[in-house]
């Protein structure tokens, strides 16, 4: 074994990394809000901006943030488009996220109670007693071969350096990319269907695309570049370019 491989094999990495819940929670807390739909809608953009940043510095971690992002977008879109009806699954995704955040917050609070008392009033076990006469009591399992097998076994079980999961690298879609794409296409066709543009959302990858596209669309709506219209629930959302009030009204 050369030293290079050894180094890779016997490293126990303890990355300092804040997960999606931690980020989201600190955003809600920064605004001194409680965890609910309203507060989550208000931090959605910050959260997405954070993902954008993370994409540049730590692209591997983005994937774990995307599932939460999807739910946040649902919450945000509901707040932007009050007539948007959510499916039962989507509704449960939302309440699931808020409940998980509440649970996580409870444990963080409990952690905060533990921190100040940890190591302050320690209960000690008695010191090891001095043995007057040590007997030698071996065991037939103590053989050279066994010792070698055991030591290599335990070394082999040490955590290996993490390998980069290729699948996850591929599917990450940049939000900026999507916004660019949307702006460009909106200029060529003034009116287009959301579904047409993003696909049907059948596979998992397509669904991620739908989510990110939807988010991009909402971002443009917010910026006043687009107007999203959904005439009836479950129906397609129509995206229109907001040129001037009078023009769009005529379409």
């Amino acid at each position, binding site marked *: 074994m050369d030293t290079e491989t050894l180094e890779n094999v016997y490293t126990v990495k303890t990355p300092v990394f804040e997960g999606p819940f931690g980020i989201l929670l600190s955003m809600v807390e920064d605004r001194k809000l409680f965890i609910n739909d309203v507060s989550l809608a208000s931090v959605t953009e910050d959260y997405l901006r954070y993902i954008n940043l993370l994409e540049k510095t730590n692209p591997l971690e983005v994937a774990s943030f995307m599932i939460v992002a999807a739910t946040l977008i649902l919450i945000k879109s509901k707040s932007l488009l009050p007539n948007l009806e959510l499916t039962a699954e989507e509704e449960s995704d939302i309440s699931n996220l808020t*409940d998980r955040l509440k649970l996580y917050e409870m*444990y963080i609070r409990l952690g905060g109670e533990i921190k100040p008392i*940890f190591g302050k009033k320690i209960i000690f*076990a008695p010191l090891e007693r001095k043995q007057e006469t040590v007997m030698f009591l071996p065991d037939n399992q103590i053989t050279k071969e066994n010792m070698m097998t055991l030591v290599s076994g335990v070394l082999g079980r040490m955590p290996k350096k993490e390998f980069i999961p290729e699948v996850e690298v591929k599917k990450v879609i940049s939000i900026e990319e999507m916004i660019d794409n949307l702006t460009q296409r909106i200029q060529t066709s003034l009116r287009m269907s959301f579904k047409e543009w993003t696909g049907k959302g059948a596979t998992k990858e397509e669904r991620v695309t739908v989510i990110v596209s939807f988010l991009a669309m909402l971002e443009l709506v917010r910026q006043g570049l687009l107007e999203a219209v959904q005439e009836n629930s479950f129906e397609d959302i129509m995206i229109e370019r907001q040129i001037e009030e009078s023009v769009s009204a005529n379409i």
Partner: protein
Amino acid sequence: MNLEQKIEAVLFFKGEPVSRKKLGDILEAGMMEINEAIERLKISFEGRGIVLMENENELTLGTAPELSRLFEKMQKEELSKDLSKASLETLSIILYKNGAHRAEIDYIRGVNSSFILRALSVRGLVQKEVDPSDSRKYIYKPTFDVLSFLGVKSVEELPGYRDTIESLNKVSENLDEENKKSEESQSSELEKNENTI
């Protein structure tokens, strides 16, 4: 010599955690007798310099937490007393749930916890055991060491334990119900987490 005196003597002699079952074997007494004697023993240990600690079904003796400073000086080894944010979160889950599966911890924290769990195990603050209710699963449990560091004789003495347990259970139950509804997507997510280790 009555049973609680004998139990006290065994715990003193062993100087390490002993299970209720083992006490029964050593002292040739039934579980009921042992349990009753332990309750009486707990009372007789109130207001003493030695404390009786309990973790799950094990018991051990230790020094009163008020005397921490004194014994810290008397023992040579350095103690590491700092906990990172991730360690605190993970510990509080394991402590207040009094044992949790890795999948549960990952689910609550929303991130993979394998590194932090290993670090906590190495420090002796948690221990991995086969789940008695499902032998295919491992459960991470609080150790006597973590209770010692917190100066509590059992998990019940943790700050806010009783008040918290109720609200924790309520939220957890809510989540369980929701999860049952969307079990499919859930299990695939967990599988994915397991694969990335």
